[in-house]
């Protein structure tokens, strides 16, 4: 990003003789993320974002103006994130802010946006609260939330008709709300379900051996796994060695995302029912175009983060074009109900809670050529996995 800035200002200096003249001809947006602390997800994210910016500017920019995205690292710290936002607003004069990975940073930025009356496009944070209990007029969220992704998995889980379930999840808001939603919805769909083991593990510090053993001792028919990253890798290996997954139905939230399944290589779990991103087998034209451009530019395949980074820019550009103005209120009205294209298909920001209808792929994991993949998958639209509008209205503060 920084490189783009430098190149851009050099180009400006060459053309206009001064960088200042150029700044007025560019639309600036600020982007804040935990680039160093969450590098595994955010490096591909940044690449996706840079690809999109390049395409937008090559295609003539926004209503004739260049797009300039100024990136800041928040050091995984909400206090620093808010300060970075202040800097972007007061010094860099950005038109709105985007980004956020960790949920606590997402809600802090959302509240900052509300206080400053500034639009915030939350790209990554999964917490349900950012659009519901903690939602506000200025905040829009792109990725499908915890609630939505769990809801995508529940029909398949209920179909398996398993009575005894175990749950294992990282012990913080994301894990807790994923499990709460799963329990409620599964009981609603299936009726009689018994939860026989409940393992809340410290994030990044799971004692995988004892946890796998404790779940096996509870003798469940099925397991709901909400772990990701190193925790998931540890749990899968210990579980495999101990035969935990043998003859058991496993549902994994986020497990099929390349960020999390690829490091497992030939030990990737087989037959799990997961959400994810099977980039190698999506045949829609919009995805093919994105995939080709990404691979041509980076000689690497995209991760889910790349899609989110790319789509964040797509959403921002569509909103800016529709508003035709940089005034916050006009931007907010433009974003409400805004339709925009993403590599995963047409998406829209719901006016009632500012959540995008971006969906996710749900399917079974399998092994192919020593790598974990998803098979028999389908794309579930985000619009179909929402609570009723009445519920949303009840949860969301009126403003």
């Amino acid at each position, binding site marked *: 990003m920084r490189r783009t800035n430098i190149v851009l200002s050099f180009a400006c200096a060459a053309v206009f003789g001064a960088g200042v003249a150029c700044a007025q001809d560019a639309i600036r947006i600020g982007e804040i993320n935990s680039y*160093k602390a969450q590098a595994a997800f955010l490096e591909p994210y940044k690449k996706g974002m840079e690809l999109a910016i390049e395409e937008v500017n090559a295609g003539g920019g926004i209503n004739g103006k260049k797009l300039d995205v100024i990136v800041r690292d928040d*050091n995984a710290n909400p*206090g620093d994130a808010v300060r970075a936002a202040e800097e972007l607003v007061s010094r860099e004069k950005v038109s709105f802010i985007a980004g956020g990975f960790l949920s606590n940073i997402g809600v802090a930025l959302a509240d900052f946006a509300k206080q400053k009356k500034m639009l915030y496009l939350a790209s990554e944070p999964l917490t349900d609260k950012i659009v519901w209990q903690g939602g506000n007029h200025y905040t829009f969220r792109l990725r499908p939330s915890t609630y939505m992704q769990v809801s995508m998995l529940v029909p398949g889980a209920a179909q398996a008709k398993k009575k005894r379930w175990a749950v294992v999840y990282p012990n913080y808001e994301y894990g807790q709300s994923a499990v709460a939603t799963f329990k409620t919805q599964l009981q609603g769909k299936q009726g009689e379900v018994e939860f026989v083991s409940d393992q809340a593990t410290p994030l990044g510090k799971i*004692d995988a051996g004892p946890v796998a053993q*404790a779940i096996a001792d509870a003798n469940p028919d099925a397991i709901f796994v909400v772990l990701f990253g190193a925790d998931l890798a540890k749990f899968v290996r*210990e579980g495999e060695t101990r035969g935990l997954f043998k003859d058991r139905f496993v549902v994994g939230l986020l497990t099929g995302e390349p960020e999390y399944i690829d490091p497992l290589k030939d030990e990737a779990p087989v037959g799990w029912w997961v959400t994810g991103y099977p980039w190698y087998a999506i045949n829609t034209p919009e995805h093919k175009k994105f995939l080709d451009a990404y691979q041509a530019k980076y000689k690497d395949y995209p991760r889910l983060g790349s899609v989110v980074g790319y789509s964040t820019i797509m959403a921002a550009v569509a909103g800016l074009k529709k508003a035709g103005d940089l005034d916050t209120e006009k931007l907010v009205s433009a974003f409400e109900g805004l339709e925009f294209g993403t590599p995963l298909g047409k998406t829209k920001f719901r006016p009632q809670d500012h959540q995008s209808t971006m969906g996710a792929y749900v399917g079974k994991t399998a092994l192919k050529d020593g790598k974990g993949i998803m098979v028999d998958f389908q794309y579930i639209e985000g619009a179909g996995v929402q609570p009723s509008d009445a519920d949303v209205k009840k949860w969301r503060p009126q403003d």
Partner: protein
Amino acid sequence: MSLAALFVQLLNGLASASTLFLIAAGLSLIFGVTRIVNFAHGSLFMLGSYIAYSLITRVGGSGLGYWAAVLLAASAVAIIGALTEFLLLRRIYRAPELFQLLATFALTLIVQDVVLQLWGSENLVGPRAPGLKSAIFIFGRALPTYDIALIVIGPAVLGLLWLVLTRTRWGILIRAATQDRDMVAALGVNQAMLFTGVFALGAGLAGLGGALNLPREPANLGQDITAIGDAFVVVVVGGMGSIPGAFLAALLIAEIKALCIALGQVSLFGTVISFPQFTLVAEFVVMAIVLVLRPWGLLGKPQGSVRSVGQIEAPIAPAGRMLQIIGAAVLAALLVLPLISGGESYTTVLTIDILVGVLFAVSLHFIMGPGGMHSFGHAAYFGLGAYGAGLLFKNAGVPMELALIAAPIAGGLGALIFGWFCVRLSGVYLAMLTLAFAQIVWSIVFQWDELTGGSNGIIGVWPAPWLATKAAYFYLTLALCVVGVLLVRRILFAPFGYAMRAVRDSSLRADAIGIGAVRVQWTAFVIAGAICGIAGGLFAFSKGSISPETISIGRSVDGLVMVLLGGIGTLVGPIVGSVTFLTLQDSVARQTEYWRALLGLIILFLVLVFPQGIAGTIRDWSDRAWKRA
């Protein structure tokens, strides 16, 4: 839970204990001999994991190749450790106590970025060890053969270390140096060689731990922080410098965790208790209990005093004319800052953060420097202040101005309770007990979703309308910061301040002239907690939101870095340190993608140029200039 299940879970715990022990043993050795709080020990562990991954994926197909790769990785980390000691730490042994922590903190930043550059951001799942890929069945439950290997390796390493320490001349010297290193030096032993050797051995053990852990945990960038936390806890619970103690502590902690996980959710008196959740903070609760009952850990002994390290601190003196002029000029500049830079400017915003940092660092320095009580958990009082004010404001509808008054009360109350326990300890044990309490507070805030908003925290904590502009809030922060700093100075020059320093320098003599050491230290703790609470309250309303991050280890470490960077032996040190650190962090982060490495390098540079901290070294320079003139 059946007895058979319990038995197998205890075996699982044994395997985890072996890994914990390997990380901790090296740290314990290094601290015992060199008294260096090696913050980079987790980074050495992580390097062991990554180097082992690279070697094993190349030559680890056969049994011989695999184990050779593990040993090679450990040796490589040992060499890195020796180089660190030789090139860096040796230059700052005469610096004030704990100053080396700053250098090793800078190393962790550099290692983070180097590993990211060399190995990339993706987690690296290592191959399984040849011949140890499967599991055997015990009472119908599978136990991985690799776990059994670990159960053997841990005690084997303990045995080897014991042999080296008790049966070789080098080992005898190490034990002698642990007890009284000045005496060892006086007897003509080459201390430099001994220190390098111990550092290499300690680093090698961390590397071995990392390499052996690879089949159980992918090499990843979060390992350094988790490993360093675990290692410190194990070492302190076992008793600093005691290798068998470290083993016992590792065993205790690993088994308690395994037991919690095995118990699962249990209904007691109608409420469901989730024991697995307790693993979030289990090791810190264990540490707190052990330290309260046994002030030197399970098998530790009271530390021998270290006589020759560092210069003897000069008595504090009221500010000279020069300092008064500088202070007045800075204050005047601050008063007009919002007028010049613009009320809503970023300079104003950044300065608010820096002023909060100054107050935080000054309160920490108050107990660390003149108080002589190193606190590794100062974020507890910052967080209590922030949450105290934030919760009153949000949940009880108290006006912002009144809620802010609650911040020092909350911080002070926390310090009152935790201080009572802490002041009964000394040195690193005291420091680790403060850390344990901070982690316990953190975990309560983190878990108590209904009250504190759990991991997401509280939002909507904005100042009252008349303070809503950045300029107004800036003046409020400046006023409270100046009052806080001057109050601390006033206390230090009052009889109470003299009593504090008397207790620090010699608690026996202080006792003999009628100063109650415990009471003085406890009071100092409460004052520091209350002032730190103000910083927390100001922070909350300046950001509009609070999350458990305000109580995290990272924030406590930032405080230490600020105090040490400025110089622990001077009163302006914490101010200089916090301004330098926060300004650097803010500007460096925008300069380059590898900002952590750059920040680390700058801190290393500062450490080498200013071995007494920035303010301390400058004072030494000017003293010398005066003497010459």
